[in-house]
């Protein structure tokens, strides 16, 4: 008799556990890049949940590196990254027998921002390199008002930090006078409060109070100029294996649907189809 009750208790326990786990299957965890995860993905999530209210989506944006560490540990379904995966990270996936699949999320342009009061309107790539590597230290050297330059950069765990060094600084090291801040927003804040500040942010942050973007090599960071702007890059979603079920549905919606593309454009990224069209068009004219 006693054993029988024990059995029922155990089975009911198991069934309730199974129910919990099946409910957990409806939960999608997205982790990684701050560039993607701070504004874009949360807004996409809100829009998507309107049509799929039963789904739970958790977002954690701490830098691109976290995308891969979480994917490999199985604690994320989708990883967001503002850079391509590194070789070392691929090893981790291989050793677990996992295959990483890349999806292009959107195109981004890294905007170089200066204070509103700064008369500088444009900088060449060489000047930008000089400023960020530390060989140019005063605004008068690039045609501005005299004053020593304060350089604000992202920190080393950011994908943008690496992308920028590759795109704008011919892979040279950052100068030791750079102040490393914790995200796009702090850079905007510091530049907006420091007349001699300069920093770089994703295009989504390019419009704001008391700071402005500068033209890089004569091209302003506008969506229509994506093929000519020297600091443009791709942003990625990563999954382990080809996505399935809810994750696949969400990913297709985020990267391809009209609604999602509208949000992407509204926030300041360039939706993949638009970018692809612009690049194709320029390739044809040349």
């Amino acid at each position: 008799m006693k054993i029988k009750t024990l059995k029922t208790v155990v089975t009911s326990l198991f069934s309730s556990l199974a129910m919990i786990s099946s409910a957990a299957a409806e939960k999608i965890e997205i982790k990684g890049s701050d560039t993607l995860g701070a504004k874009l993905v949360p807004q996409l999530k809100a829009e998507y949940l309107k049509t799929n209210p039963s789904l739970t989506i958790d977002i954690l944006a701490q830098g691109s590196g976290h995308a891969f560490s979480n994917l490999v540990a199985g604690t994320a379904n989708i990883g967001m990254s503002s850079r391509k995966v590194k070789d070392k990270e691929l090893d981790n996936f291989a050793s677990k027998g996992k295959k990483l699949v890349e999806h292009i999320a959107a195109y981004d342009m890294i905007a170089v921002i200066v204070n509103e009061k700064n008369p500088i309107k444009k900088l060449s790539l060489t000047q930008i390199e000089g400023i960020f590597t530390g060989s140019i230290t005063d605004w008068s050297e690039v045609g501005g008002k005299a004053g020593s330059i304060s350089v604000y950069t992202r920190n080393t765990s950011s994908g943008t930090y690496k992308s920028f060094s590759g795109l704008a600084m011919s892979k040279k090291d950052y100068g030791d006078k750079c102040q490393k801040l914790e995200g796009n927003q702090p850079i905007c804040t510091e530049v907006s409060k420091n007349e001699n500040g300069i920093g770089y942010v994703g295009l989504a942050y390019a419009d704001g109070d008391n700071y402005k973007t500068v033209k890089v090599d004569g091209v302003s960071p506008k969506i229509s100029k994506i093929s000519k702007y020297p600091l443009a890059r791709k942003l990625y979603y990563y999954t382990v294996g080809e996505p399935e079920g809810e994750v696949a549905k969400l990913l297709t919606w985020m990267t391809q649907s009209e609604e999602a593309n509208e949000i992407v454009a509204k926030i300041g990224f360039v939706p993949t189809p638009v970018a692809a069209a612009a690049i194709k068009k320029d390739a044809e004219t040349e």
Partner: protein
Amino acid sequence: MAKKNQPNLSERVSFKRKRGVQLMGLNLNADGAVKGFFGGNAYLAILFLFFICIFLFKSAIGFIPGYRTELSEARISGVEAANHVNYQLTGYDALYTKVNQAFINERRARFGALETVVPIYEELESIIDDQLENEVDEYTELDEGPEKESAAITLKESVRKVCATLPRSKLLEEIQVRLPETEEISEDSYTRALIFAEQYALNEYETPDEVNRIPSMINEQMGSFFKAIDTIKQSDDELRQIYVMIEKQALTTYQTIFNNRTNQESIDVLSKDLESLESESKRAVAIQERIDKLRSKIVEVDTDENIKLVYAEIKKHDEAADKMISEFQAGVDLLAKAEIQTEKSEILIKESSRLFDELKEISSDRKALLTEWNHQKPVTIWDSITAFFFGADWKTGSNRQSLYGLVPLFTGSLLISVVAMFFAVPLAIGAAIYVNQFATKREAGFLKPGIEFIQAIPSVVLGLFGVLVVAGLLQGLSNVGWLSWIPGFPIQDRLNVLLAGLLLAFMACPTIFTLAEDALNNVPKAYTEASLAMGANKLQTALRIVVPASLSGIVAAVMLGFGRVIGETMVVLLVAGNKARIPDLSKGLGVMGESVHTMTGIIAQEYGEVEPGVLHWKALFMVGLVLFLISLCINSVCQRIIAKRSNKN
């Protein structure tokens, strides 16, 4: 009623020995269990501490040999030699930028009027960008022909129209920001700028070459100053060429060696995984594939062959370095002949002559190092230890060689802590003396809990408060004219040592206050009474008797406050500015306006990106270990001081 509840006296005093379970000779009863529970808790804390220590040491210990490997790879590939050359070039850059600033300042003062065309043109250009983008794009897409010609005329007209919308007075204001001496915009410069702007629109957003040539045209008129700066500008060419050659060669070797090593490490790890798997399983196949791929990436390098080129360049080095110095000197001599009119330029030139002396020193040091340099000289463990503890650069995530030098972080932490203690110690101890000796009971009743409540504020809240509120206030205050005597004022970087120090002082106050107050409280009543009986007044008693008697306790309080400050993470991460550079102490107290990085901040900031086990990760743990040891030292010294005091009492 009261009588009824009163227990019988005999019942109260007699503690019956409770019977418990006898197990392996132990008497396990309820009392024993409670005692065991408490004791267990105490030991658990110790055990925990023990595990943390082991974890820290274990993670950090691999750093020293690992760093040694990287350093020796840098040596064998010649990257180290490239660094020696680079130090001189960095020194040169710092010097050149000063001279260049002086030059530009002088040029603006003397020929600013000629230069106005450039800023006017740039203003007009940005108006065209903002307002005529569609028209320009449409024009660009037209095919050559009469249609395009007529469109060009319309476009020119719209350019003029749009440019006219900018009132001259506003334009003048914008120009004055760059060229403060400008009094008016001459019609001539405006027309020229307008023509350039038209060309810009017609030529697919291409800035006319003439605009770019204007500064160099003006340069010609600067006479011997320009000749000087031109000589100086070219003085480093040869050395830079040598650097580029050495680096190109050395980096290829370095990266190949580095990749080979990391690939081999990956293969080792993967092979170990493979051993425990069945050979046919899906995972095993995937791993095998990866291993094969990694193996194919490993390439043979002949370091001895590769290094020959580096040596060939090093041979040329001494001459090039001497040439840089001598040509620079020639430039400086020319400068002496040039008439410098502005005070600012003179100051800059003076500063640069100080830097020039430094550069001479750097250059001769590095020259000596390079002559002795041998790629086969082994890197010892000791080299690796000194490179960590006395290294002046913390440069991680580099595309070249990553450097892990503790000095910039350590000095940053120390500087902030010293500033914090400077504010916190008088404040907290003063408060403690007041509350303990002079305050009425009612005052003490709200002062003490009030100050202690500060401790309850989460540090991230305090950090955000610092960034959003205090930083702005401090910056505003620093711009007030009559406060400019304060070192570091006016502040350029909002996030700096002073701000971090102030916030941390606020955080350290309750710690110091509570402990100091305790120490004052522990002074035997007899001391005070004796002093008062001798006729001393309350102030005399407090300052001459009570404070000296509790001095050791107060010192302990201050030290613990220091420990609290140096270990604080969130606040410094948010407000210290995170600039991994040794603070420039030559500024004296003005150093407080600089941004610094800290030991705690670097761990919080960088651990996110590094994969566990790589050298960078171990380096962060080394920093953690240093922090741990500092705290340990402070705490044990404090305990000794306190123990000594209680013995005396």
